[in-house]
């Protein structure tokens, strides 16, 4: 009985802590959205205005007028979707090879690829920039999308782990029916690995949509900006003027796709499949 009471108390404390923390985690987003719906004067009131009545929806119209948001969103969508395609394709191909096919020296190559996981990305930034500069790729989308078609050690590792769990009998049966390696990959391995492929695609989307450093160094023509660099440009432009309501409107628009993907695909995030590289 006493034990029961103690447990109830413990749970009550846990809920309290989680609730207070949740408010702290949700409040910034609430503040972002409500700021975006205020007039410039309302953003600076004291005591603060919690809920703007009526909501200033025209802030978004003003933003679209002054700032080609749709163009930037289009650029981001184009880059992200190409990067997803390249990532899923190149890494699943390589992972299948590493998981299932025999070749002398294969394990050594795999280890070499894995060793790049420990490499902080920043080491490669300058020499890659020099490479793309020499290729005349600066100020095009190429540096942001082409590398995605050439594998990523982390996703190869993840998908290989997944392919290893597929029973060999399935392939052997197909092989007896005369299927080649490419068909086995496309018709047996890919459908079975769908959960892992979805996880890879989702993480790639979040990473690519939010990528700041890449677009920042490679894109200089404003027409080509992605949402992330455009936001920074906007912030730099209006910092001196009291236009925080417009900044927050732009910030709100920029996070909507990620929130939507996250809410729709939550379980892929929560399983931690991709972050730990352990199959879910």
């Amino acid at each position, binding site marked *: 009985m006493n034990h029961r009471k103690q447990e109830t108390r413990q*749970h009550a404390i846990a809920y309290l802590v989680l609730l207070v923390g949740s408010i702290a985690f949700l409040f910034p*987003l609430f503040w972002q959205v409500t700021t975006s719906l205020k007039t410039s004067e309302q953003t600076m009131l004291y005591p603060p205005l919690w809920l703007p009545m009526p909501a200033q929806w025209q802030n978004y119209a003003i933003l679209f007028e002054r700032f080609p948001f749709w163009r930037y969103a289009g650029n981001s969508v184009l880059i992200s979707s190409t990067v997803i395609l390249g990532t899923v394709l190149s890494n699943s191909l390589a992972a299948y090879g590493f998981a299932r096919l025999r070749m002398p020296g294969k394990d050594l190559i795999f280890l070499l690829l894995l060793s790049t996981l420990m490499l902080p990305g920043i080491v490669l930034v300058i020499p890659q920039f020099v490479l793309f500069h020499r290729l005349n790729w600066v100020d095009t989308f190429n540096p942001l999308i082409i590398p995605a078609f050439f594998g990523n050690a982390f996703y190869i590792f993840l998908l290989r782990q997944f392919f290893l769990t597929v029973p060999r009998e399935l392939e052997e049966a197909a092989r007896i029916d005369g299927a080649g390696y490419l068909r086995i990959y496309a018709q047996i391995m890919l459908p079975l690995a769908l959960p892992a492929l979805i996880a890879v695609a989702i993480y790639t989307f979040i990473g690519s949509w939010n990528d700041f450093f890449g677009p920042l160094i490679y894109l200089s023509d404003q027409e080509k900006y992605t949402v992330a660099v455009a936001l920074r440009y906007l912030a730099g432009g209006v910092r001196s003027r009291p236009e925080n309501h417009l900044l927050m409107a732009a910030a709100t628009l920029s996070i909507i796709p990620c929130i939507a993907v996250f809410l729709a695909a939550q379980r892929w995030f929560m399983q*931690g499949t991709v972050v730990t590289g352990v199959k879910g």
Partner: protein
Amino acid sequence: MTHTTSRLTLRQREAIACACFIAPAVLGFMVFTAAPLLASAWLSLTDYALAGWPNFVGLDNYRALLEDEFWLRSVRVTVQYAVVAVPMWLISSLALALIMNQKLRGVAIFRTIYYLPAVLSGVATAMLWGWILNARVGILNLTLRFVGLQGPNWLGDEDWALWSLILISLYTMGWYLPIWLGGLQSIPTDLYEAATIDGAGWWGRLHRITLPMLSPVLLYNLMMNMIWALQLFTEPMIMTGGGPKFATLSYVLYLYNNGFKYLRMGQATAMAWLLFVVTLLLTLLVFKSTPFWVYYEGEQRER
């Protein structure tokens, strides 16, 4: 086609197929990783400035860095950030995971809430916090004023700015929650039952069972957090530009400035190499220390 392939053994055909499957990844490794890595070792010994041909300058870039007060400043800023932020992230995200790991109803909604900020754009989040922390009209200082306190100039005061960045970095700690929770859920419950029968309290169970069983996950999170902290960039870039008085000039921000603002590619590459070496050494150090604190199941150990 069948005529030529029939001359190859099955083994050879399989090897050729394998080579084709992994070819894009191997090519990518060579062109986008290995070659740039080697090139950067050489670039760091030159005065390359993007235009023209690089001249070999020996170790001048490295020597110049050691005498560069901004470089020293950026090292100090980054070390201070990492030393405070990494333990803070680890402890708070683990604490949160421990609370969530109890059998609570409706805990999924909390997981969603705490994880959400981790998937949002770093630029948007930095802008949002810049607004919240605005000294004059930011909601934090307005709230403090409401209860009669004078809030500091969070981002504009050189004594506060870096601490503000450390504080707001907590906002994305939810990223590590699924990893902790995965680790916690893999601990067999009979261990806890046995411990409870033996009279172990809350602290005893945490200290004797949870932490040792969780140590491989802790190792992983520690490494990832360390690498992440050393690469601090977006927040100072957006919120402070490295100021005030260079109080938030992180290592990578200075590297960026060197390379892309002043076009000192050689110098920036030297900075990147130093960061790489330090990261490698830290990683080795952590791995060397693992026999003392990481426990792997099924492992025999004498004390």
